[in-house]
């Protein structure tokens, strides 16, 4: 199969019943994806859901156990070199050689993609402006901060003008300001025509960046759609009540409130669904007060992707000890 190096396939990433098993783990278990060229596709799921394994298969680092995967029109198992020529990858941990300087690393990367000396230097001019590392680009990578490493990693992924860019949790461990800068960069690269396949465990990130989101849990793609459609499909507002004790008692009391559709308890947190959240907020507060449960906070909000995940799996995407602020 060949579509020519310059040609661009309509579908950037396609998988059919893709499975990747390790000894006792079904890391990816029957995933079907169809990511269109030019999309930002957000792949959302908790730690260990199978996101990184899927990216490793799509980037030709792992073979599928069964099923098919194509990237930029080429089969990852049979045409790995054709795939590699068309993809850029920034994995979860910045994969850099600390003994080289940033500029040395980028030059070598360019040479390995067959770029001429002139092409490499031309490209470096663009990339150095883009990543804004300044004179530190000539310093050893071991002296770089986490943010600088991430940006250099991104530049290394872009040296050869890839058609599809894989970003595996690109903002994990970054402070909020750095995250926003990465988001701006992702949008800009996409505007320039690069298809972006982004894995993340941050709901806010998927919501802010992705044209479409796939939600993965325990190796299965459990839902796919635009963030708006996924949230709208829940069809209700969400009230979150955090209580100090007696969550079950509080749950029973809130269930009796007229207009409440559903109540779920997770630890000390009640998630209350209601078609008109603002109308039932006061009755819910009264019911909680009436059952003698002390309420720490009560919040009314629109549904988030985490609510979608909760609805689908009964659990939250983010692990304990992490927050959506980038703290891990």
């Amino acid at each position, binding site marked *: 199969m060949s579509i020519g190096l310059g040609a661009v396939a309509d579908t950037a990433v396609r998988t059919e019943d893709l499975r990747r098993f390790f000894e006792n783990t079904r890391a990816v278990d029957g995933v079907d994806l169809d990511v269109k060229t030019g999309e930002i596709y957000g792949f959302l799921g908790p730690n260990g859901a199978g996101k990184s394994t899927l990216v490793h298969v799509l980037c030709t680092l792992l073979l599928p156990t069964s099923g098919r995967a194509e990237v930029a029109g080429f089969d990852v198992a049979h045409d790995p070199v054709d795939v590699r020529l068309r993809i850029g990858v920034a994995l979860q941990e910045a994969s850099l050689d600390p003994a080289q300087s940033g500029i*040395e690393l980028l030059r070598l990367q360019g040479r390995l993609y067959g770029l001429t000396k002139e092409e490499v230097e031309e490209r470096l001019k663009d990339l150095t402006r883009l990543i*804004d590392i300044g004179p530190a680009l000539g310093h050893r990578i071991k002296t770089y901060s986490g943010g600088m490493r991430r940006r250099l990693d991104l530049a290394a992924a872009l040296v050869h003008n890839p058609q599809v860019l894989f970003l595996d949790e690109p903002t994990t461990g970054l402070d909020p300001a750095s995250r926003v800068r990465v988001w701006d960069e992702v949008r*800009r690269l996409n505007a320039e025509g690069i298809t972006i396949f982004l894995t993340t465990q941050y709901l806010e990130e998927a919501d802010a960046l992705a044209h479409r989101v796939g939600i993965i849990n325990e190796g299965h793609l459990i839902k796919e759609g635009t963030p708006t459609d996924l949230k709208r499909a829940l069809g209700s507002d969400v009230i979150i009540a955090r209580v100090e004790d007696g969550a079950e008692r509080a749950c029973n009391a809130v269930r009796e409130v007229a207009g409440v559709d559903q109540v779920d308890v997770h630890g000390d947190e009640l998630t209350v669904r209601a078609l008109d959240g603002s109308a039932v907020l006061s009755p819910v507060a009264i019911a909680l007060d009436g059952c003698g449960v002390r309420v720490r906070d009560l919040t009314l909000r629109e549904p988030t992707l985490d609510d979608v995940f909760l609805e689908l799996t009964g659990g939250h995407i983010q692990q304990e000890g992490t927050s959506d602020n980038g703290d891990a």
Partner: protein
Amino acid sequence: MTTATLDHAPVRARPAGFLADCIGIATRSIRAVPREIEFVVPALVVPVFFYTINIGALGPLAEANTGLDFKAFQLPVAIIFAVTGLSRASALVTDIQNGYFDRLLMTPIRRLSLLLGLMMADLVLITTLSIPVVIMGFIVGVRFETGPLGVLIFILMAGLWGLAFTGFPYAIALKTGNPAAVNTSFILFFPFAFLTTSFLPLDNLSGWLQTIARWNPVTYLLASMRSLLYGGWDFYDIGVGLLAIAIVGTVSMTLAFSALRGRLKRG
């Protein structure tokens, strides 16, 4: 980050070619050496130390009993000490551990060049590090009966031997991805370097040591290198020395490339 944008039009990725891949990897590896001075120092200090001790302590005794020019007899041993086990295998392990090896695997680089590039760099380094040892020999009065060409072949044989031996640490590096395991490959150096004619000619070795030395390829390597020093051109000895290098190289490279194949298995 600034608001700079990327110009996508002119650049098209393409395979760089096998030689370009090897040179890219080798250049990166050679460039790293001066930044890791701890890598070079033992290769310079160990042979000087042993050479000085051996000719100082054993020289008069050996010369009295065997009639050898012990300074010349010991020079190939110093070279073997300098170059055996010298490789960038520990740097390869670091690449595996920090994910840079995966970054290389995601480029269109030919897989063989990941190892051959490192070995090209090793050959350059080994040959370069042999030169100070030869100069040390000249300083203490050692001369080559075979002249300047003999010196060149002497250094080339040292380089080929060092290269042949690199397969072992690379095999361990690729198999384990563990720096401690790579360091243990140094243990292999001892039987090769000591259970041989390092201190006395084969005929002067006793019983079991002579038997082992007869099977040790380094014995024949030392014999061929010594022939360049004080035996004149002996093509038989040189041929046998090269054959010994080839045998060790075949074993070590088979191990290294099968370990590379195992590491690259995507299944």
